[in-house]
């Protein structure tokens, strides 16, 4: 299986994801430079965490215009699997691959800690190895994770079952996001963005007794296997 991790200027979790895909799982993984104008055949594209372009204007606002984003958007529109983690999620929002927008955290503070999430939709390519409503643990590390969408946008998300991950409850919500939203997918389910960092809880050594990140990647592998050739790029 072939995965690509995009490096934008200021990405800083790119090698963390690479490490998991390439060393923990046996994805044949490339680092993709933001200036590339084309994409090879990939089974998975990851937009990693970090501070693309310093996130000085709005997180993800400038990265969204990087050369690589055109082929990524095309890849997504053709059904390719796109995973946006943290800053990657913000980039997916800015580039309208996912609906809504990110505001600065409620308490204006950057927050880095483990939090509890509820798997609200376990039928996506990214969550099929969890149980519905299962409570899982994942680290967050962000200053702008306060998800917002207007009322009828929210209704659509609910109707189409696009809310994939929620913070377990208000007390676990680290940023004040609407409806405790932590991760959403597009209508088709092939584009997924989340604030928590699955790559930070996929190895026993740095996340003892926590395979909740690991299972996000096995979900993806499972999906890719099932797709087989059905999925024409």
């Amino acid at each position, binding site marked *: 299986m072939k995965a690509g991790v995009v490096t934008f200027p200021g990405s800083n979790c790119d090698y963390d994801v690479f490490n998991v895909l390439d060393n923990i799982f046996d994805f044949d993984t490339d680092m993709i430079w933001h200036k590339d104008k084309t994409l090879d055949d990939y089974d998975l594209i990851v937009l990693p965490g970090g501070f693309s372009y310093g996130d000085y*204007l*709005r997180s993800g*606002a*400038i990265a969204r*215009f990087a050369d690589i984003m055109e082929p990524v958007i095309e890849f997504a529109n053709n059904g390719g699997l796109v995973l946006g983690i943290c800053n990657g999620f913000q980039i997916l*929002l*800015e580039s309208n691959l996912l609906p*809504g*927008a990110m*505001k*600065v*955290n*409620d*308490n*204006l503070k950057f927050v880095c800690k483990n939090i509890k999430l509820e798997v609200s939709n376990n039928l996506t390519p990214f969550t099929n190895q969890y149980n519905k409503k299962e409570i899982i643990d994942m680290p967050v590390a962000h200053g702008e994770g*306060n998800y*917002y*969408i207007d009322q009828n946008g929210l209704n659509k998300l609910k109707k189409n079952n696009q809310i994939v991950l929620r913070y377990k409850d208000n007390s676990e919500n680290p940023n*004040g996001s609407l409806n405790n939203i932590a991760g959403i997918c597009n209508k088709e389910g092939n584009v997924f963005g989340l604030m928590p960092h699955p790559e930070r809880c996929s190895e026993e050594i740095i996340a003892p007794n926590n395979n909740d990140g690991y299972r996000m990647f096995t979900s993806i592998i499972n999906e890719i296997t099932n797709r087989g050739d059905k999925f024409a790029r």
Partner: protein
Amino acid sequence: MDWEVKIETKLKDGILDPQGKAVKTGLESLGYNNVKSVFVGKYMEIVLNDIDDKTDAQELVEEMCEKLLANPVIEDYKYELMKMEG
């Protein structure tokens, strides 16, 4: 001709503004009790080179705001355009 543009962006009405909230509490804790509301947004000053026509300049600014400077999903923007001397 050169133009100076002043742009203000701000969250749309009805969208909770965490920064505004924090500033308001901050002011209250300093004993300023007649603060009714606070909104915090961004302020930008941009200088544009050689554009002859004002409407061209306006179009350009609006395009830049829609595309990059403001996030239409949650932000409104206002701008002011001034011809620069010399």
